[in-house]
């Protein structure tokens, strides 16, 4: 790697400088951790401290990520892979360092397999468009599950309609796990693709991704894992999963909004057609036709989200310094506290009782609609989500139009669950007895 420019170092640029990241060097001390996130210390609604329990929607950002964005724009900003001036080199370097960090974070064999997108949704749409349109034919089967987020369902519906392909779904069992026996039966020679969510954003279920990928690959199917709710919360390695594609979002793992990742097996990416056409993704262009750049640029038309890649790189640094094993352990602890406390309140029903689960806890309260509950929680300073969680078919299966969801990250505190319970009880009483 080139020597660091003195000017940049002097002003403390965190974007293009080579910061040394020591895995596991940051201590999991709640007070220290929370001081890294100024927003967690704000007060809402007349002095109520904020309890942010909507982390499955998006996480908060530590100062290091915000500063990386700020430094990038203040000291490094230029377009990438184009101009030959100093700043352009710095910007390109900062952008590509983001890619290197992401590759390392998910154990990808090399940076060519990392494509920057806007998020999980765009990553999956990219595969549906560039791989699906080229390789899926009439009568082919695509296996999904009943617990998919709309982003891993609708793109395949569009593709299936266009190509005359058939969608099949692995059923969800009552406890929130997938029917693995039914899954194995769905794996016929007609199946070309198996795409499934690693961790459910509603049920919290952690699916046995490695085994499911192995079973799909055994019949020659291509595999896509939706890692939006897994990559931020547990150590995920594509080398270990052995999947063909892994999609995830930056903003659910401390990074900025607008940046996401598609990991793809190199040979597959090489075989695919481009996603969007434009600058950056071409090799040679004539008025009649063009040839494509090598991967990953082939799939990154136009000026990319450079600052987003820088911010995501800083986010992976933060998580690496904490250690994903510690992140996971802390979250498991917080989730256990929340499930125990919610279960102890009469009239509260939790959706998803998988033995292996993550920190998204969906529930309903007898006599209180999730919206009204969220409104009460908000008034207490507790931020939760209410609604269909972008998984309408799954909620329909469980017989509810909407649920309330508290979702945790490593920076949450057990006391925040106490405040959630307080709000739940208050709402329950209010709707049972009215204001008087």
């Amino acid at each position: 790697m080139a020597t660091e420019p003195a000017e940049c170092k002097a002003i403390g640029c965190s974007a293009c400088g080579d910061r040394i990241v020591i895995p596991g060097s940051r201590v999991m001390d709640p007070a220290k951790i929370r001081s890294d996130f100024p927003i967690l210390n704000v007060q809402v609604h007349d002095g109520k401290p904020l309890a942010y329990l909507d982390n499955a929607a998006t996480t908060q950002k530590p100062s290091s990520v915000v500063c990386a964005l700020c430094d990038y724009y203040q000291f490094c900003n230029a377009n990438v892979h184009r101009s030959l001036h100093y700043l352009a080199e710095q910007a390109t370097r900062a952008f590509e360092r983001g890619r290197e960090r992401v590759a390392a974070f998910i154990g990808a064999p090399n940076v060519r397999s990392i494509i920057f997108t806007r998020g999980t949704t765009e990553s999956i749409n990219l595969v549906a468009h560039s791989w699906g349109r080229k390789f899926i034919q009439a009568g082919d089967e695509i296996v999904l599950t009943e617990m998919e987020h709309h982003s891993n369902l609708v793109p395949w519906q569009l593709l299936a309609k266009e190509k005359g392909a058939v969608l099949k779904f692995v059923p969800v069992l009552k406890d929130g796990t997938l029917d693995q026996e039914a899954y194995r039966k769905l794996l016929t020679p007609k199946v070309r693709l198996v795409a499934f969510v690693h961790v459910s954003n509603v049920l919290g279920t952690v699916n046995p991704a490695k085994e499911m990928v192995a079973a799909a690959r055994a019949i020659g199917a291509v595999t896509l894992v939706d890692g939006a709710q897994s990559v931020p919360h547990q150590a995920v390695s594509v080398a270990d999963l052995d999947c063909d594609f892994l999609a995830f979002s930056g903003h659910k793992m401390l990074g900025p909004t607008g940046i996401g990742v598609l990991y793809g097996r190199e040979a597959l990416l090489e075989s695919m057609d481009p996603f969007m056409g434009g600058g950056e993704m071409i090799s040679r262009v004539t008025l009649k036709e063009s040839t494509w750049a090598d991967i990953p640029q082939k799939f990154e038309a136009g000026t990319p989200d450079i600052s987003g890649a820088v911010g995501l790189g800083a986010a992976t640094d933060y998580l690496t310094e904490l250690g994903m094993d510690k992140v996971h352990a802390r979250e498991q602890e917080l989730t256990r506290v929340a499930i125990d406390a919610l279960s102890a309140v009469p009239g509260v029903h939790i959706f998803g009782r998988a033995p292996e689960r993550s920190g998204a806890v969906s529930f309903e309260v007898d006599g209180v609609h999730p919206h009204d509950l969220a409104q009460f929680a908000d008034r207490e300073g507790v931020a939760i989500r209410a609604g269909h969680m972008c998984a309408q078919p799954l909620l329909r299966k469980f017989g509810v139009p909407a649920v309330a969801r508290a979702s945790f990250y490593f920076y949450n505190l057990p006391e925040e669950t106490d405040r959630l319970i307080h709000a739940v009880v208050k709402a329950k009483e209010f709707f049972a007895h009215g204001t008087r």
Partner: protein
Amino acid sequence: MELDELYQDMILDHFKHPRNRQELSDEEVLVDEENPTCGDHIRLTARVEGGVIRDVRYDGKGCAISTASASMMSERLIGMPVVDARKLIGEFIALIRGERESAPEAFGDLVALEGVKQYPMRVKCATMAWHAVEKALGKLGV
């Protein structure tokens, strides 16, 4: 604004005892509306005779605000000439969206829902049934 101003007794009463709400048969459903942001759902039917709304009934699932709003809407519109009803629907939606300063005198009980305008995320809850009935009147060609 405190929550009991949003959830006034009037609203709680309609939420717990919704008027004119009953399971509809698929054949009689005129309008089937979903709130895509939250999954709430209303199906609605209406009957108009001689330019006057004679019946409004609905089913579905919703929060306290949307349930109460549908109940109060049905109670208010039944017996009302279509011309007046359309005017009221427009005024109600405008009030909840914060597009008009205050409720006209004719609003009566409906002002209980005015507090919703302080909560932008809940505006759709309060207006869903009103949009549905407006569509139903359109389908009836009145």
